[in-house]
């Protein structure tokens, strides 16, 4: 392998073929790391019809944007992606490769790390440079502790959570977009047989400025109707802790926490949620946290900015009514 150099961001695109907000956050993080390590910031983009996105990413980088544009790469296929990426990274080993801790990142980076024998830190909530190396911080024991880790291979890989980095400002010099030839493998062992999208009760949680979540204490599906009304009034989305998802009161796509979505809205309202570490791991970075719980000793109050002790059935109607009456500012 050649000498490892540069910071590389594995970009992801949304359905409109634009870089996702997490990808841009990673470019922001990458700028900081690249400047601290006096190296270049690069991006790798796999997709189909991704030329415009590559140009946008180039505004934030200082090195190169490697563009692998090819119909076979339009959707994530583990074996195709790994083959293409492993080849690329063998010839251009990075100092650090960052990907989002997304559905794809969680599946792809471990495969890549083991294929290339590189250390990988998953689910990072913090990165910093100390001396010549990058230190990665991540939750362990369900979020009861934070471990800071170093990678002992020349290339370090990490998957990073949403909202760890800040959206970037354009770098002084734009990176060069370099289209590369792609030869996807002729045969794969995994066969993708199609997707089933759960529609109807959709929760675009990650982007919502307000998240109103219900927990086990909601006792059933009906209460979630009230949470939806509040969310609609506040321009937000409905979330849930795990028990309502397990019981089918809320769609699994609504789950917030260490094995659900990680959110950091301006306002997070937790109704009838006790505040387990697993839940807190998914929302403790929110701007303001509001808790409604009938148990005055519930741990959620310790991690909230506003709290009301009481039965949600008695509190939510007047809360909702007062919201409706509130004069606009």
């Amino acid at each position, binding site marked *: 392998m050649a000498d490892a150099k540069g910071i590389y961001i594995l970009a992801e695109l949304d359905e409109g073929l634009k870089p996702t907000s997490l990808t841009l956050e990673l470019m922001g993080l990458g700028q900081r790391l690249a400047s601290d390590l006096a190296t270049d910031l690069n991006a790798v983009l796999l997709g189909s019809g991704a030329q415009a996105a590559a140009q946008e990413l180039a505004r934030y980088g200082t090195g190169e944007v490697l563009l692998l544009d090819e119909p076979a790469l339009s959707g994530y296929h583990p074996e195709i992606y790994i083959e293409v990426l492993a080849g690329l990274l063998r010839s251009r080993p990075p100092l650090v490769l960052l990907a989002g801790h997304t559905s794809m990142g969680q599946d792809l980076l471990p495969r890549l790390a083991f294929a290339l024998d590189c250390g*990988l830190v998953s689910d990072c909530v913090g990165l910093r440079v100390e001396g010549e190396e990058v230190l990665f911080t991540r939750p362990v024991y369900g979020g009861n502790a934070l471990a800071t880790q170093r990678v002992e291979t020349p290339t370090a890989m990490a998957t990073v959570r949403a909202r760890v980095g800040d959206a970037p400002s354009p770098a002084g010099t734009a990176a060069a977009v370099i289209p590369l030839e792609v030869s996807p493998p002729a045969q794969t062992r995994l066969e993708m047989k199609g997707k089933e999208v759960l529609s109807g009760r959709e929760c675009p949680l990650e982007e919502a400025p307000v998240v109103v979540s219900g927990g086990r204490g909601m006792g059933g599906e009906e209460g979630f109707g009230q949470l939806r009304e509040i969310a609609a009034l506040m321009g937000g989305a409905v979330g849930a802790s795990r028990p309502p998802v397990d019981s089918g009161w809320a769609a699994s796509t609504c789950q917030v926490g260490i094995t659900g979505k990680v959110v950091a809205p301006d306002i997070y309202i937790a109704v009838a949620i006790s505040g387990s570490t697993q839940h807190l791991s998914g929302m403790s970075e929110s701007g303001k946290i509001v808790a409604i719980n009938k148990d005055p000793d519930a741990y959620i109050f310790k991690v909230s900015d506003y709290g009301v002790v009481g039965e949600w059935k008695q509190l939510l109607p007047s809360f909702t009514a007062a919201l409706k009456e509130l004069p606009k500012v």
Partner: protein
Amino acid sequence: MGLNIIVCAKQVPDPEGPPSSFEINEAELKVTARGIPPVINPFDENALEAAMRIKESHEQVSITLISMGKGISKAVILKAVAVGADASLLVEGDSLDASLLDSFATARLLAAAVARAGGYDLVLCGRQAADTNAGLVGLGLAQLLGIPAITLAQKVDVAGDGVVVERVLPDGYEVVEAPLPALVTVSGEVGDLRYPSLQAIKAAKAIPQTVLGLADLDLDPSTLGRVRTVALAAPSRERRCKMVEGETPEEAGRNLVLALRQDKVI
């Protein structure tokens, strides 16, 4: 013939234990669980449940449970085995303490253990361990065994000489197939592990168990790591909470809106 399933199950301190039971030893870079029992990692229980469902719907299925660690509780393993496993393989040793091993060393050691378990058609892991939260070992194991891997299963079935998996996506799921042998990591959506009967727990003592030590695997864990923990800290999440009250609950609900408006939160 027949179908051999291996389930990799790790013991962890009960992740639902209160935060105060997780004692952080910053000097030794260790988390020590106080006053909470060890349990099988919840997602590994889901993996065992997935294996049981395959066993119920197919002929000649044999399940082997593999667990590696320091001071594995025999009672916890026995209870899991009693659910319906046909054999268990434990790898024990002081240097297998979870805090001493990273995911890379764990995957290498498990791969060696799997090789000692006899043949396999399907390996099931949990999507992630509750102590590491890493989600790496399953994919690493598959890579080391040279078999295809599918992550985040909400449903696992065997059809012909392949495995069919419903894989959880942020907005639904996708169906993925792989030829056997293959590895699948299992998510909570599969469903809770069934309970064994008391009778089955008693009978489980007779189910064959192999215990290996590190020497049997012929690997030195201290050379296998790729990632090292250099600091451990408690998360600082606590905030000052303004408690909003009222003469009646209705008033408290209204007062909450007023307090949020007064502080310009809304």
